């Protein structure tokens, strides 16, 4: 049984845009995967099918033996609690502090305050935001926000991390630092990581599997 599997997945938006076209893809547990493609290739749609922000028009998406494309809405929280997601548009709560944003997944999981606080401290060290702990998220720079979003995605140690263009607005060094943190996380905890990117430079820096998307089709896997 594959860890994550797309079987004959099509996605056509109501506007008529065909975002995914017969996608078949299998990803094993612990793999570090770059999903590469130009803007509009279908990377974000593929990610959204995993988080169940979108449903496929046809086909199946399986995660750890569970068909998430057929999952009832009431089970969505359980699926999402087991994912770590770095959203393309970050989805941070701007008026919350760094600490509040980071601790939110742990609150959802019902982690005890003391242990949650300890985990926040650990993740602040990992993403180098220790000195910004009590800053309002909106006050942070673009790079700091990306780091905060990454921290929130990793804090509950998920089995699957999805990062949609996590280095979009970052300079080369910060981008490398961020993806490096994800790579370390994957190696250390055996987590599966999928990073959607259009940066060829980034891909060349890490020993990872490359999946290439073009106009909704997988052309290299």
């Amino acid at each position, binding site marked *: 049984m594959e860890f994550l599997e797309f079987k004959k997945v099509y996605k056509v938006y109501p506007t008529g845009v065909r975002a995914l076209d017969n996608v078949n893809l299998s990803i094993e547990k612990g793999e570090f995967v770059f999903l590469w493609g130009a803007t509009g290739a279908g990377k974000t749609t593929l990610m959204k099918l995993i*988080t169940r*922000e979108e449903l496929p028009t046809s086909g199946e998406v399986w995660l750890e033996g569970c068909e998430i494309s057929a999952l009832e809405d009431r089970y*969505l*929280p*359980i*699926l*999402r*609690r*087991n*994912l770590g*997601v770095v*959203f393309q548009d970050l*989805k*941070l*709560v*701007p*008026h*919350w502090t760094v600490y509040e944003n980071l601790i*939110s*997944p742990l609150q*959802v*999981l019902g982690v005890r305050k003391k242990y949650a606080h300890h985990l926040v401290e650990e993740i602040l060290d990992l993403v180098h935001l220790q000195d910004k702990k009590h800053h*309002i998220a*909106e*006050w942070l720079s673009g790079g700091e926000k990306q780091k905060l979003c990454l921290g*929130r995605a990793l804090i509950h140690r998920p089995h699957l991390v999805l990062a949609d263009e996590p280095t979009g607005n970052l300079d080369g060094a910060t981008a490398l630092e961020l993806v490096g943190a994800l790579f370390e996380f994957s190696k250390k905890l055996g987590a599966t990581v999928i990073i959607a990117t259009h940066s060829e430079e980034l891909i060349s820096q890490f020993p990872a599997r490359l999946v290439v998307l073009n106009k909704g089709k997988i052309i290299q896997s």
Partner: protein
Amino acid sequence: MSKDRAFHRRGIKSSYLVMGFLSIFFTQLLLNLFIFGYLELQQMGGVWQSSFAIQAFFREGVAPEVVEKVQEEVKALPLAGEVRLVSSEEAKNKFLGYFSLQEEDLGLEENPFPPSLEVRARRVEELPLLAQELEEIEAFEEVFYGGENTEALLRFYRFFLTAGGFLLLALFVFSLLVVTAVIRASIQARGIEIEVWSLIGATKKFIRAPFIYQGMMEGLSGGVAAFLVSLVFFHFLLDFLNTSFPLFFWISWEELVLPLGVVSVLMGSFLGFLGALLACNSVEEESAK
């Protein structure tokens, strides 16, 4: 600029809290005024009850055992309160006493005053209904009660209770609408938070909880504040009324404390809870569309 925006967002949240609090506070104040009016009328009703009684006169020559039987029959009526038999002798003495006469002044060989029953209603507003029931009893020749003045007072009493009931209902609906609208706006203003909570796996219950809590706290604090303000207000009002109209039957301040406290706290919290629940449902329905 962005610092300003962050403060602005926190400011919006606080202003919604204040609006929710104030809406419950003011409606609860109105409700407390109504409660005062209602309790005052209850008080007056009690006084009327002892002042107004139905006088039911037996037919001439009615046998004493029939009088006794009818008295028991009347006592058993659900609307009847206290029932007292006024004998022919007592009626005659009352008449003589009222007009300061002596028995010889009447110059009558037989006592012309029939025995009667003096009947009080359990609830003062049910006096006419009880009178109607008594009129249907064969043994009575005539049935009297207070007359037009009593009926006018009773009409006012009934009107106040009916109007008050509607007012109470209207107030409840109004405050519910206000609280729902305020919390709904508060939820919409926190749309990004709700979206993030949902994306990181929070359940509906988890997302709703702070809004329900917020509603209940707004309701509770609004209710408690209205209770305290009402207590101070009624303390001075009753002082003034007792001084200005000492012969009127005013309710005491102490009698107001418990009903006002219970209604303010329970109604405030319930309104806040219900308003928040309705607001959450409405926002969820809207986002599902």
